[in-house]
């Protein structure tokens, strides 16, 4: 029976299985012409020399205030309480626009590089010489959902594949026993726009982010039924494999059937691999402290940052850490809320970078800290700030990004990025480049054309060389 067709399928299957879980499921679809072509393209797109293998994104839902955290603007203090002198501003909530609101926070230079950041980011300050701070971001909408879709999927509309899906489509995973794209959700609940933040859109569902939950069943159906021992499960799996093998023998042309056999074994291994990856008790007390697991304000976020490191270490390609709701959306009590959020996230975020570095993983791993947009220099109500799509700040670390560098600038009031502006599309192009992916060639057929994350022809995006080490 080992004729040429079977051999062909078998070879395709094995070749892609080496590429990991994502590729495994993809192969099963090779019968589909569309995917057959896509598979060739996927390989063609991964053509650059990679500087990084994996990504951890610390996503800060709501739009962190760049002018209170990363981008000091003395003019804001000078004009505090006075009308904004620059004319009309684009607001989200028109009716509550107030006067210029100076930041109540002190800024100071950190590290050898002297990057200025606010007083509430002492730990991020301590890794200032590792990070690449971008102060000149912009995006396309002042609406949360649309801006989230822009930064995750490159378009304002829902239903696009997200960055993590594109990366796993391009690169697969290095550990077939764990999902390639993991989402570490906030135990407090879903972020705004929910599952769409990690959707695979019109890419095959295998590239969707898999949420790991806290608690005993981090992935649905990870626990065997009560009373079923390992031996009993083994008996079951052996029986199933024999049934499925005889079915495959009847249809050797259908490679999906071979993938299905393998997947039951992968599933059984996942049942062990996932809890092991999430077991933080294996970490030293020192490491746990580094992430702030000993402090109530940082414990929860710290656990997820530490988990992210363990997943990346085990070959997961893309890890997203989300927050419940949209805590950085400081429409009121801006200063008070920012202080609390910095207390929660500053230490664990910086610890992640430090820890990756200590373990020699930082060179291969991109850490990205960002929200979906920034905030306005004027007040909303007495003490809040409204959305701003024209300027926001983010930082990147590791994985081929420049160290101890602050890029670009906004105008005197921090309203608009004016120097060395970076769009979300530029960001995507640059991230993919560091992962060894040609962003123009990583495409998938959609609506009669070859669609990509960056859609370079329309967005005119470019790779920001200045951000690269």
């Amino acid at each position, binding site marked *: 029976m080992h004729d040429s067709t079977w051999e062909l399928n078998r070879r395709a299957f094995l*070749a892609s299985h080496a590429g990991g879980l994502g590729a495994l499921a993809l192969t099963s679809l090779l019968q589909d012409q569309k995917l057959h072509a896509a598979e060739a393209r996927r390989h063609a797109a991964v*053509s650059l020399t990679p500087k990084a293998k994996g990504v951890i994104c610390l996503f800060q839902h709501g739009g962190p205030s760049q002018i209170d955290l990363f981008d000091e603007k003395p003019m804001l203090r000078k004009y505090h309480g006075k009308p904004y002198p620059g004319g009309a501003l684009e*607001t989200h909530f*028109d009716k509550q626009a107030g006067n210029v609101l100076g930041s109540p926070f002190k800024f100071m230079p950190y590290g050898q590089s002297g990057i200025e950041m606010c007083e509430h980011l002492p730990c991020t300050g301590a890794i200032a010489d590792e990070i690449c701070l971008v102060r000149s971001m912009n995006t396309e909408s002042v609406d949360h959902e649309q801006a989230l879709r822009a930064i995750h999927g490159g378009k304002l509309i829902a239903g696009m594949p997200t960055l993590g899906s594109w990366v796993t489509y391009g690169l697969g995973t290095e550990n077939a026993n764990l999902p390639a794209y993991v989402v570490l959700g906030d135990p407090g609940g879903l972020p705004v726009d929910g599952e769409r933040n990690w959707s695979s859109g019109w890419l095959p569902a295998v590239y969707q982010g898999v949420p790991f939950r806290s608690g005993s069943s981090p992935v649905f159906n990870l626990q065997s039924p009560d009373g079923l021992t390992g031996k009993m499960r083994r008996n079951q799996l052996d029986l199933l494999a024999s049934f499925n093998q005889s*079915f495959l023998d009847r*249809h050797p*042309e259908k490679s999906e059937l071979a993938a*299905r056999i393998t997947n039951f074994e992968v599933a059984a291994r*996942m049942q062990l691999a996932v809890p092991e990856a999430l077991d933080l008790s294996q970490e030293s007390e020192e490491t746990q402290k580094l992430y702030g697991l000993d402090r109530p304000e940082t414990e929860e976020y710290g656990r997820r940052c530490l988990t992210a490191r363990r997943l990346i270490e085990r070959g997961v390609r893309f890890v997203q850490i989300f927050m419940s709701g949209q805590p950085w959306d400081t429409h009121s009590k801006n200063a008070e809320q920012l202080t609390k959020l910095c207390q929660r996230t500053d230490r664990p975020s910086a610890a992640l970078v430090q820890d990756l570095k200590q373990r020699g993983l930082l060179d291969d791993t991109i850490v990205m800290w960002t929200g979906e947009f920034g905030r306005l220099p004027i007040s909303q109500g007495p003490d809040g700030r409204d959305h701003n799509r024209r300027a926001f700040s983010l930082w990147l670390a590791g994985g081929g990004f420049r160290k101890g560098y602050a890029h670009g600038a906004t105008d005197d009031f921090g309203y608009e990025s004016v120097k060395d502006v970076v769009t979300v599309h530029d960001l995507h192009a640059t991230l993919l480049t560091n992962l060894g992916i040609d962003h123009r060639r990583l495409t998938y057929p959609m609506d*009669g054309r070859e669609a990509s994350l960056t859609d370079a022809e329309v967005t005119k995006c470019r790779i920001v060389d200045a951000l690269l080490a």
Partner: protein
Amino acid sequence: MFSKEILLLIGLFTADPAPKFDAQIVPLLKRHCVKCHGPVTAEARLNLSTPGAVLRGSENGPVLRPHDLEASPLWKRIAANEMPPEDPLSADEKLLIRAWIEHGAPGLPTVAGLAATGDGHWAFQKLSLPNVPDVAQTLLPQNPIDRFIQADLEHEKLSLGPVADRQTLIRRLSYDLLGLPPTDMELQAFLNDGSPDAVERLVDQYLASPHYGERIGKVWLDAAGYADSNGYFNADSDRPLAYRYRDYVIRSLNADKPFDRFVREQLAGDELIGWTPDMPITEEVIDALTATHFLRNGQDGTGESDGNPDEVRADRYYTIEGTMQITATSLLGLTIQCAKCHSHKFEPISHREYYQFQAVIAGVFHHEKWIKPNERFVLAPLPGERAAWEVRLAAAEDQTQLAKQKLAEWLTANRPRGKIAWSDGFDGPPESLAERWSPKAPGDDAPGGEPAVALNSAAAPGARIINGQLQVLEAGTAGNRWLVTRQIFDWTPDAVGAAIQVTFDLVDRRVDPNGTPAERTAYYIAAHDFDDSGAKPGGNLLIDGNPATSTTVYLDYPGADQKQLGAIGTTPYTGGRNYGVRITHQKDEKFLMEHLVDGVPEEKTLTFTEDQLPDGAFGYEFCCGRSYIVDNVVVETFDQPQDIAALAEFVKSVQPLKTSMSEAAKQASALKNNPPGKLPWAVDLTPNPPAVQWLNRGDYGSQKEPVGPGPFSALSDDEQAWPESPAENARTTGRRLAWATWVTKPGSRPASLIARVQANRFWQHHFGFGIVDTADNFGLSGSPPTHPALLDWLAGEFVRTDWSVKSLQRRIVTSQTYRQSSRSPQDQLNADPDGRRYTRAPVRRLDAEAIRDTLLYHAGILNDQLYGPYIKTDRASNGEVIVQEKNPDFARRSIYLYQRRTQVVSMLQIFDAPTIVFNSVRRTPTTIPLQSLNLLNSEFVSKRMLEFTQQVFADDRPDDERLKTVFLRLWGRPPTTEEYSAAQKFLATQIAERGGSPEATRQAWLDLHQMLFAASAALYLE
């Protein structure tokens, strides 16, 4: 680092020596060349977007000659990196082009073939009338489908395969037409039916089943983008009436409504029947109006838009654009959204035509009189329905009134009274107020607030007795004050079970009948020290009675240390009722606070410690212009055993009366909110919608000149003029009906395209892939048909049978092509590796809904009730989206589950049910480990298999017979000898492993059943 893999891939392709035109060359040309050399921007008049155009070449002549690289300018320009001018092709890509030309450029049409179809794109032509070809193989049945397929195969010395066995065939038919496995009776009857037309009769039986519409309806509902929520924003708000459209689709397909009529109804049902609001309502009217909900299937965030005017406008445009996209892909197989910003690069659709199409539906999406999603309904009750509803509503309201009265009477007679510790009916002379009340708490030295409350004063802030009631009079300024009793109370009764309560009548929320009602009626207990200067902590508990929601409780109110503790009760504060709180000593020095309404404790409660409830007075809060009237303040204690017992007895006996009252009220209000005949529809209310403006680069702020409605020029022809403007006095523009008539006109080019797209859709349903692979794209950039003549014949047959979907499907599933075995001899497999030449039936996995429905069926609990509102789903605490098992509709078919865009039932999603953003014209079945985990470990699967196990053990039968039965039921066929003995062996081992008891035996069988269901033999159709 990936070159090895590329080589491997090229190696794969060289198994078939020439690169494939569709799979490899077309994508490459599209990616690199079509931007400048496409149908719209054909530089040098060269268009590389279609096979015909590639063959035609440029203004300078042919661009390639098969087998001859030197004579092929296409190759030479590419090889020299002259083309594309920027971003030349990679070495691997060049290799592909080179190899393709060297192999004779396979895949390009012959010149003769091109001349026959003319210059235009095949899909935009009128249906050809292909002759059913003659075939050498004469034993075939005379189904024309088979002759088209066989004719193609005979060129290659191949032929259709043998017919599948009956067990395989009935399973295939049952799932394809009903979405469920065949019943045991159907299977037996079919196996025993020796007549030559057994298959035809089985098909007719299935086509006549009411469950047919549930399965085939889903095919159209996916394409039409049906969802039960609005999507777009995070809220993903509910679309509670959309289910009526879903039911309309199921009903229409069950009735085999001619598809052209089905299309016209969905685009313009209201215009089609000339609907007016005073028209008598019939079932036909209801169908025609409900059908137009098709135009409301898209995502719509306009109910939640809260941003600046630009954002609101963008949200509205987004809704319109989504509707256009769904309409174009589902009906015409056209991708049009590129033309929103610029003329389409790949398709002959201009920027202007996009907005002409928008003008067709402008009446439904009226920019100036925008209708939000939840207002898009019409009341169209059938005759008598309204009157019947009014009678029912009046009865329900009477019932509520009666229940209320009964409760009130019972309360008057039975409300338990403890020991009255203090009371005031305000029956004394006005000046007596100061004897019992004070602005200062007992023992405190300063009054509560500045200025203090003036007693017996008509000047605000003041309190006075009038008509035997207490009036609280507050000026319109901010500030907290209190009026408290001169007596203090012990708020922490000693004995467990003992209680203290304070109650009062809220006579009215305003003193002046014309004044503003108080926005709060707040009062204190344990009041002892207004400004918190004393040493005693806790107390000053403010019970903040709210006229709209539950009651909030604050500790240490007012001041910087005030703390909101939470809410109690559920009943808002309105005049004419008796309110208060009761504190009961529970065990462990905990004190329970309950909210009392008319003496009845409510559900939401709070618990306090002793420290938080120091001795103190009762009092009213004066704040912020809240004036009101109260009476009959009573403080009671229940510390005697008989009082405590009476209290408990009261709570027990009041419950049924309370329940019956709230049930009656709930029913009345549900009835009131659901008048009969509430239908979702397009809502087009004007003959003069605002002009649609052409948007420069699709920018909502950059409008060019207005455009009127019009057809797509690629599909229009001279024979069919675009209709004139509507008649005077028309209710709507009539544009939708004009477009719908144009698009379905018999014999026209658009109707030909619709027939092809739909015929392909149903073909795809039965084979897993279409004759055209891109079901949503029949344009120049879509895949060409593998069997163009067959597609045109099928589409023509569809039209000739009065657009009968059932006839079309009957043709398909009774063909030998469909009835073939899915197993092929090896030489056929080699010749037809992907099965697209139809030498065998494809092996297809069950879709998500079929997997869930089959589990319910095997469990013996499938509830096959048709139609109705969607079945609620929930996100469980672990994040999984499920249907609660306690839901009475739990076991109904999956098509009736809540189709919330952001909350797809997890199990269905894992098995590739789409998350509807726009629409879904084809599901791509995946094979992922999460599916394996679901089948191995999920509670849903385990429980269904447990129920199945209970059924097969319900009677006493020998194990070998039982084993054969479970195979037959779960796989639809008996096991092979090897499968049977593997199962036997498993049972023996697993029973021993589980301890050998009778219970262990059952468990082992359950373990077996679960594996049988997880097996490919159960999950796939052969």
